[in-house]
């Protein structure tokens, strides 16, 4: 199996889906001639032409809204938001429209759109190019939110998102784009949206997380193995709606749970994960449900001292796991 990086898996999934289905097309700012500011759509313009790789005006509500219209017609648009931070002008289109179209029309209409956006910090992006904004959408039935951690998951889940008959938000960690590499089958495959994935089996501590933090957890687990601490790592992959079954199983398995997000803590995805555990397997727990998250500040600053203080990393994760092990 070829090894590729995270963003190459994005590009490959797009390319394969556009080849497979004429209804699939891409739209967004600078996605055409430029191939995207991160080059996620690199080569698509050349291969599929400007009608299917559409450079749009700088207007996110229109990018989402035009995509939604096309999806209602029966197309399979993949809209790119240049940074997840810039999805905010499109919130009304996503929550009032995409999420509710099937429900409000009693199943007469549907909205199979995929909206991709790079998120996350650690790239000197400062306040507005570093955010994790998934929790804004993670209370809206009708939506699904996918946040993969590996190139393998990226390809399988992005293809599944495009084929999904409902709107899917697909958030890609921009620091992972070139940092995270992995084996990706050349053949066509999809992975199930809504299913978490065990990234490492372990018996002492359960870590539940998603995105780049999965790698921090795996690195920490590796190190802690030597100390005799066995860490179980569950990758949520889909952060909305959550895979309750997998969460309950993983939490019950070790009885000691650490939840991790790069987002700030209050109101983040991991609060929901905690609530599921507290409601369903309280008596299997041997320790309080711990959360490791970004600090309660509006976003990640630019200065390296401040960015570093904000961002999680394998050391911080390792410390938190060890603490919990010692509880």
């Amino acid at each position, binding site marked *: 199996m070829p090894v590729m990086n995270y963003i190459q898996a994005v590009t490959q999934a797009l390319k394969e889906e556009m080849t497979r289905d004429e209804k699939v097309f891409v739209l967004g700012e600078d996605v055409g001639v430029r191939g995207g500011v991160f080059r996620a759509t690199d080569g698509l313009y050349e291969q599929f032409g400007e009608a299917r790789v559409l450079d749009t005006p700088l207007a996110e509500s229109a990018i*989402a*809204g035009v995509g939604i219209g096309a999806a209602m017609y029966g197309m399979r*648009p993949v809209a790119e938001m240049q940074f997840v931070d810039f999805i905010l002008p499109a919130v009304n289109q996503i929550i009032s429209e995409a999420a509710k179209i099937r429900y409000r029309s009693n199943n007469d209409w549907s909205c199979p759109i995929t909206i991709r956006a790079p998120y996350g910090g650690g790239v000197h992006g400062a306040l507005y190019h570093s955010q994790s904004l998934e929790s804004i959408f993670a209370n809206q039935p009708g939506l699904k939110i996918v946040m993969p951690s590996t190139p393998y998951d990226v390809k399988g889940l992005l293809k599944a998102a495009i084929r999904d008959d409902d709107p899917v938000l697909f958030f890609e960690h921009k620091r992972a784009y070139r940092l995270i590499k992995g084996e990706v089958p050349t053949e066509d495959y999809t992975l199930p949206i809504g299913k978490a994935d065990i990234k490492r089996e372990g018996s002492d501590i359960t870590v539940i997380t998603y995105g780049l933090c999965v790698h921090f957890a795996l690195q920490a687990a590796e190190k802690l193995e030597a100390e005799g601490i066995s860490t179980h790592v569950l990758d949520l992959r889909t952060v909305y709606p959550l895979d309750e079954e997998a969460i309950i199983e993983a939490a019950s398995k070790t009885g000691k749970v650490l939840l991790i997000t790069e987002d700030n803590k209050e109101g983040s995805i991991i609060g929901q994960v905690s609530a599921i555990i507290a409601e369903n397997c309280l008596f299997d727990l041997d320790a309080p449900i711990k959360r490791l998250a970004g600090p309660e500040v509006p976003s990640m600053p630019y200065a390296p001292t401040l960015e570093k203080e904000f961002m999680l990393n394998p050391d911080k994760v390792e410390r938190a796991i060890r603490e919990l092990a010692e509880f």
Partner: protein
Amino acid sequence: MTENRHEALGLSDDQALDIYRTMLLARRIDERLWLLNRSGKIPFVISCQGQEAAQVGAAFALDRDKDYVLPYYRDLGVVLAFGMTPLELMLSNFAKAEDPNSGGRQMPGHFGQKKNRIVTGSSPVTTQVPHAVGIALAGKMEKKDFVSLVTFGEGSSNQGDFHEGANFAGVQKLPVIFMVENNQYAISMPASKQLACEKVSDRAIGYGMPGITVDGNDPLAVYQAVKEAADRARRGEGPSLVETISYRLTPHSSDDDDRSYRSKEEVETAKQKDSIKSFSTYLRELGVLTEEIEDKLDQEIRKIIDDATDYAEKAAYADPDTLFKHVYAE
């Protein structure tokens, strides 16, 4: 002598009469809804009254077997012309399970019916504008020759989604018709507090498209403007902005009391220009409409509405269990 304007537009007498009939049907349904509301049978009404000419004139200018419409909540006339039946509308107003718009999930006026290419709409205003652009884009990609018509109020033309959608359509030269039904109020706010431009159609140039303002009480003027826009669109020449000027004859909705912000006299004056009257007069002067036809029409329409009301009133609400259905594809 009255000039035959509809013939000049390529409309037969029957078609002209059909426009009138549809306008009248819309008005009578609307009036019935108010009665039902005031007698406590339905909780909410939002009206088309005063805008029937614009709505029906526009719809008739389209290919109703092919084109898409994205109506807003007042567009009873548009959806009737596009094939939604009075019974279906009554089912929606009574919020019954058989309502094709939403199965009783949405408030009345939130139209949607896929088989008639009436695109489902929501309450937040103007979100439908980019949708219309997306549908036109899809049509262009698939080399179809339909157009999409999207309507909205003049107040709503101040939302960002109007601007973004119109500009997108302009750049891509998409077959969309943006129709502003300017009824001179956005709830309590007169157009002068909403808009600093003289005409909403003045905004068209900013999107590289033609803009035109027409008398919204004249179905033929609206027909002509929308027909030209549709022809342009089908020729690949891009979008147009059409503004129809009329007046909202009722309060904003059954929850509103318009006496707090406008005078009775103002409303009475506007009623003098009621399109139902003026178009009826026009057709009578040409002999297309007669006392006899009008009587028959009245009876026919009353029966349709009575039957629809009876049926809808007795029809079942959606079963509580269905609450959980259709969040995602099943």
